[in-house]
């Protein structure tokens, strides 16, 4: 008989099979990611804490320790409190709108129709297009003089040019605008999440619900939505964290105006800390996001754990 296994060679060194050990190989593969997080997330985070506790400005870069006084000053400021409320309104409203659009978009895309593949590809665009580019287009649509929306409404005869809304110039409208743009940007992601969830619901369960007498709404809201809730909540965590910390849409569309009506934490921190050079207060504002997000994420994760099926 022919021996088909290699003869056990003499061991040359005890490191010869070191890469066969899962612990070694695992650590090797994980190390770039861990390094990345430590250097690019952990270090700046510690730095931010340090700045927030000091009187550091770019004009006077001294690490003079001032305790919590930056935080106290920030909280006492009217602008900051307004910004905090704005950030919550902006996040919650745009996530809510995005989820609703996502749910209906997913239901539409699940139905077979001609050109569905093209629509599926196109619907991801808001997500894929660089946000600066997209926001410029939206800015044009909301422009005080050349607004495409106003022009269309006038052309159809639904609006008198005399009382055309100044979308970005009026506090409430401006907030609605940034919410709409953010929801528009988020909803393809919500569609993908809902599509993944709904297609994972077993056909047997849906059929059983149909035979058991559930109509469209009952099937959707008593069977499908509860079953896909865990995955939707994961999507919501992502969306919330990104929106809560985001400044790009506000920065590009309104700069936080008019009179701080659309100011959000990210943008305020950026304006004070970087543009005005008051690094200490900017860091204090940014760090405010941390406990809020922390609590939010813990609540959502606990909810998923409880709902796990």
């Amino acid at each position, binding site marked *: 008989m022919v021996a088909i296994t290699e003869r056990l060679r003499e061991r040359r060194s005890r490191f010869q099979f070191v890469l066969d050990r899962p612990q070694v190989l695992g650590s090797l593969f994980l190390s770039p990611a861990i390094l990345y997080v430590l250097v690019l997330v952990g270090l700046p985070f510690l730095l931010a804490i340090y700045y927030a506790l000091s009187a550091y400005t770019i004009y006077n870069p001294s690490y003079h320790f001032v305790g919590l006084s930056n935080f106290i000053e920030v909280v006492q400021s009217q602008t900051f409190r307004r910004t905090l409320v704005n950030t919550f309104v902006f996040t919650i409203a745009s996530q809510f709108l995005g989820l609703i659009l996502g749910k209906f978009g997913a239901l539409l895309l699940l139905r077979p129709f001609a050109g569905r593949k093209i629509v599926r590809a196109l619907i991801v665009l808001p997500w894929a297009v660089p946000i600066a580019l997209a926001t410029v287009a939206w800015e044009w649509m909301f422009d005080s003089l050349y607004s495409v929306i106003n022009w269309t409404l006038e052309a159809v005869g639904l609006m008198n040019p005399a009382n055309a809304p100044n979308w970005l110039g009026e506090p409430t409208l401006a907030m609605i605008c940034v919410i709409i743009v953010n929801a528009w940007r988020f909803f393809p992601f919500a569609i993908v999440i809902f599509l993944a969830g709904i297609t994972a619901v077993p056909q047997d369960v849906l059929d*059983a619900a149909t035979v058991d007498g559930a109509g469209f709404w009952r099937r959707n809201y008593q069977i499908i939505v509860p*079953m896909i809730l865990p995955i939707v909540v994961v999507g919501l965590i992502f969306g919330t964290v990104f929106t809560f910390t985001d400044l790009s849409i506000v920065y590009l569309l309104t700069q936080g105006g008019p009179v701080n009506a659309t100011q959000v934490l990210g943008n305020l921190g950026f304006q004070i800390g970087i543009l005005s050079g008051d690094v200490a207060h900017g860091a204090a504002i940014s760090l405010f996001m941390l406990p809020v997000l922390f609590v939010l994420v813990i609540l959502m994760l606990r909810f998923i754990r409880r709902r796990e099926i």
Partner: protein
Amino acid sequence: MSVVSANEITKRFSDVAAVDGISLSVRDGEFMVLLGPSGCGKTTFLRIIAGLEAPSSGEITIDGTVVNDLPPRARGIAMVFQSYGLYPHFTIRDNIAFPLKTQGVTKAEIRSKVEWAANLLGIGHLLDRRPRQLSGGERQRVALARALVRDPMVFLLDEPLSNLDAKLRTSARNEIKLFQQQIGTTTIYVTHDQVEAMGMGDRIAVIDHGKVRQVGTPAEIYDDPADRFVATFVGSPPMNLVRWNGGHLGFRPENFLPRQMVHNGAVTDFSFCIDRTEYLGSERIVYGRLDGLEAPLEITAKLPPAHVPDEYIRPGEFHPFAVRSSQLCYFDESGKRARRH
């Protein structure tokens, strides 16, 4: 009286006819099994009865009413699915109660019905658990209970035992059969397992390529197959076939015995060349060829080991075997059963 009747039902998926003109009537209280290989259209046909698929043509009547345009919930049916289709986020109690809630039944009545069904199936102690905490057998009972509370005119069961292990399947088979006899509800049961079909069905409809090949009691299906497909699909090992007069002659392996064991009546003799044998404890399967006769498949004989000692049959030997002439079936060129041969 027939409770369910199907009249020339067809279902086409683009170019393929999954169901190709099935007509079938199921009597009141009957346990009807739809038996066929995978992809023969039996599940599609069941789903058409349930209203989960619309037929391309034909008519379904349930309890005297044409139900083609009625949604599943209005057809008076209840269905148990292959993987049960339990709602994973509901407790067992809510699972069983769901069909009642959709009908707007009062809370008190829901409570009493759920408990009645759960106790009947022996799952009363599981009502506050969730499906994932249950074993396969328990889940299957929950699915049955959920079907039961609707007080259906007809039970539709789609391979409900295929997710159970072999041992559990045998006991679940008996339970379903007993349960059906107890409540007396007309039942249509889809399976590809002939043992289930033979053991449970009052009548069996054998389906192949979207067509009903034969409807009959288990004994009729087994002893009197209508065509070559039924003859070779039912029975394990399947019926032996040899070419004869342009058609085929068929006989069951257990009727194919050593010559000296076949005594009275008219007998047809064969010379059997043995290739190999399998000892299965309660029976011995002998594989081989027939001298001078052409057969599409290997010929098998199923012998009682107690009566045929091991030394008697050895590979390579020729033995005189015989079949009682009354136990021979003749199939013509088209595969149909012919009475005379």
